[in-house]
């Protein structure tokens, strides 16, 4: 039997009926059909990430009107770097959320791995690549341990990772030792990953172009294959409109970044992580199995999926991403300190995933929600900082804006439920 192959014991019966349902409301061709379909989706609440994007636009508009420097290229460029640490961690959290589980240890793990890198590289003078690898492997091992306790021993993920939250924080303090904060040299690989900004105009535009072309190419190829196989495919107009939308966003972003210093490497790495892991989730067997587990764990088990292995691997991915995020956060302040991984980091990372549209109950979400969520949270923080309000007021407004950002999405989903789709 060929690997992954399919072997039908049953020849297709002659008396086949058409599988397409006659009651399906088929979209009309052309622009009009497109608009009609769009209207139908809006009324029935199938909006995808549109509400969050809308919320983001509103947030930007409000803060921009309050203080013009919010929308300055400099601030947006800073923002694009500041979200990377939390965003990377949020990507890992998205994986865990897809299983319908939670990881409360990501903050501590990020701090721990930053400390591993800093102490090895700076204090013990270990080669930077070895130190980097050690930090990442450290994260992976942490995830592995937590995953085993969850998947094999059966301790609820909440408890395992809560214990981890404490334990790894303790380990970090231990590793940092009595001296506490360790300064990075500023010339090491981690700092450079964060602080490098490609100032050639071509860099940002080039990346935008490559992204758009990749999307277009993949869409066209897919549509061709589908047409050839006789299964429904996306109409040309649809592809064109989507590509156009993406092109506008990509080139606008590139233009803004070029207005200040150029394309930050950190942002580029972040995007690459998102795209690659999104691909893993949507287009590989592994990703399919992660979604299946989040949808119906018993169903997944019966389908022959190795549930323990998926669970362990997802927790490993999550902790590894926490390590990556931790390194970027350390690079941001050029040091690993005892406060690393503390504070609001954990909540921000989880909130980023959830606000971006990943369900807490498993089986629904995407790595892109890490970007969207981190952007929403980062923008609020940045906006409040530019306003310079007192903390009491800041907390209240941040809370209110967080809530408001999700209300649109929730209302949309409510319509959707009423339309029988949730």
């Amino acid at each position, binding site marked *: 039997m060929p690997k992954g192959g399919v072997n039908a014991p049953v020849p297709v019966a002659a008396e086949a009926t058409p599988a397409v349902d006659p009651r399906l409301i088929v979209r009309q061709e052309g622009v009009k059909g497109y608009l009609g379909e769009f209207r139908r989706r809006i009324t029935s609440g199938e909006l995808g990430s549109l509400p969050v994007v809308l919320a983001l636009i509103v947030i930007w508009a409000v803060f921009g009107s309050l203080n013009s*420097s919010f929308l300055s290229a400099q601030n947006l460029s800073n923002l694009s770097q500041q979200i990377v640490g939390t965003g990377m961690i949020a990507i890992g959290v998205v994986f865990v959320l897809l299983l319908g589980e939670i990881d409360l240890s990501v903050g501590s793990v990020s701090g721990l791995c930053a400390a591993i890198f800093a102490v090895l590289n700076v204090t013990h003078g270990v080669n930077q690549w070895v130190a980097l690898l050690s930090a990442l492997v450290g994260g992976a091992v942490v995830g592995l341990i937590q995953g085993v306790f969850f998947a094999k021993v059966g301790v609820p993920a909440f408890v395992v990772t809560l214990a981890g939250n404490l334990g790894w924080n303790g380990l970090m303090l231990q590793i940092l030792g009595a001296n506490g904060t360790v300064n990075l040299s500023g010339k090491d690989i981690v700092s450079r990953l964060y602080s490098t900004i490609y100032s050639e105009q071509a860099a940002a535009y080039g990346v935008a172009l490559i992204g758009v072309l990749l999307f277009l190419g993949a869409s066209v190829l897919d549509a061709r294959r589908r047409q050839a196989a006789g299964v429904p495919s996306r109409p040309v107009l649809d592809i064109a409109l989507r590509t156009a939308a993406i092109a506008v966003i990509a080139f606008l972003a590139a233009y803004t970044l070029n207005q200040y210093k150029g394309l930050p490497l950190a942002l580029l790495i972040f995007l690459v992580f998102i795209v690659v892991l999104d691909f893993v989730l949507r287009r590989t067997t592994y990703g399919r199995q992660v979604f299946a587990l989040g949808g119906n764990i018993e169903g997944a088990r019966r389908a022959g999926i190795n549930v323990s292995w998926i669970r362990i691997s997802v927790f490993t991915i999550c902790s590894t991403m926490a390590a990556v995020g931790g390194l970027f956060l350390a690079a941001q302040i050029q040091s690993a300190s005892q406060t690393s991984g*503390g504070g609001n980091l954990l909540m921000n990372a989880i909130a980023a995933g959830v606000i971006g549209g990943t369900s807490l109950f498993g089986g629904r979400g995407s790595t892109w929600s890490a970007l969207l969520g981190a952007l929403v949270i980062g923008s609020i923080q940045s906006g409040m900082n530019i306003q310079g309000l007192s903390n009491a007021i800041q907390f209240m407004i941040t809370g209110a804006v967080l809530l408001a950002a999700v209300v649109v999405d929730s209302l949309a989903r409510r319509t959707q439920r009423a339309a029988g789709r949730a």
Partner: protein
Amino acid sequence: EESSGGGSSGSASGSAGGGSTVGAVRIGLLLPETKTTRYEQFDRPLIEQKIKELAPQAQIDYYNANENATTQQTQVDTALTKGDKVLILDAVDAKSIQSSVQKAHDAGVKVIAYDRLAQGPVDAYVSFDNKKVGQLQGQALVDAVGDKAGSGSIIMINGSPTDPNAADFKAGAHSAIDGKLKIGKEYDTPNWDPNNANQEASAAITAIGGPNVVGVYSANDGMAAGIATALKAAGLSVPLTGQDAQLDGVQRILVGTQTMSIYKPFKPETDVAAQMAVTFAQGKPLDSALVPVTVTNGSGNQVPANLITPVVLTKDNIKTTVVADGLYTVAQICTPDYADACKAAGLQ
């Protein structure tokens, strides 16, 4: 039944707990947090060392409240349970510790307010003055900015809004800065988080405009780390303050990305605290040399006190302060990355 001694706190300390010899004194050391390195790196070992020196049989119970006032309250309870006769208490929250101080007082236990002036019937106090610290930071910034004061404004990044001590630093700093420098943006930073401080600084630079920033007040070295990178990213080189003389802060001062820090010579402070504790443990009154002044705490109690002056740490006095006092060795400070700066500063 095995430890009925635990029931009557403040007496018969010898019988409670494992293995202390008869006549040993039992002293509780309650420190507030671990986020700043000084407590576990200096205060605890130095105090323990000094007490052992003065009273070799003394038993010291150590507690750290991890920035939580409620935890500290339970730790005071625990200390009383274990039969500690003297408490060296560095309050998380000087106000809300009052009831615990009262409880200890009622149990006949002496309370030494350490570093922060707790409310309630405190028996003695030794500290650096928090307001004074802020004032020194502020003054140092005013001096460093010098005649650029008119050409722009500064950014103030204070400590955690939920940390009562941050309010003291802030008030002290304002007393020195207000009227002399223009404050462009001011922040309180939850949890003293360096990453937050970094973002606040970035935002403020954007809002004020890079060339208009003439200096940054940072309440401690941890946040200064984050601020320094924000300044660097914006291509700014302006005065930046700090506090605690952390190793990384010292290194930044060496290379000039931070202007100053506050060095609190822990040794005198810990020595005084240890002496006070041992004196109390022996049931003797405090020598007036040990408590030259009297202060009034928030609850109106008169407290005999010993206030030690903090030192402004700059590139010029690294050698004579932190190195001379054995806080850090030259080797610790002068890692390869800082070798050149060390040479320039005459450290190596």
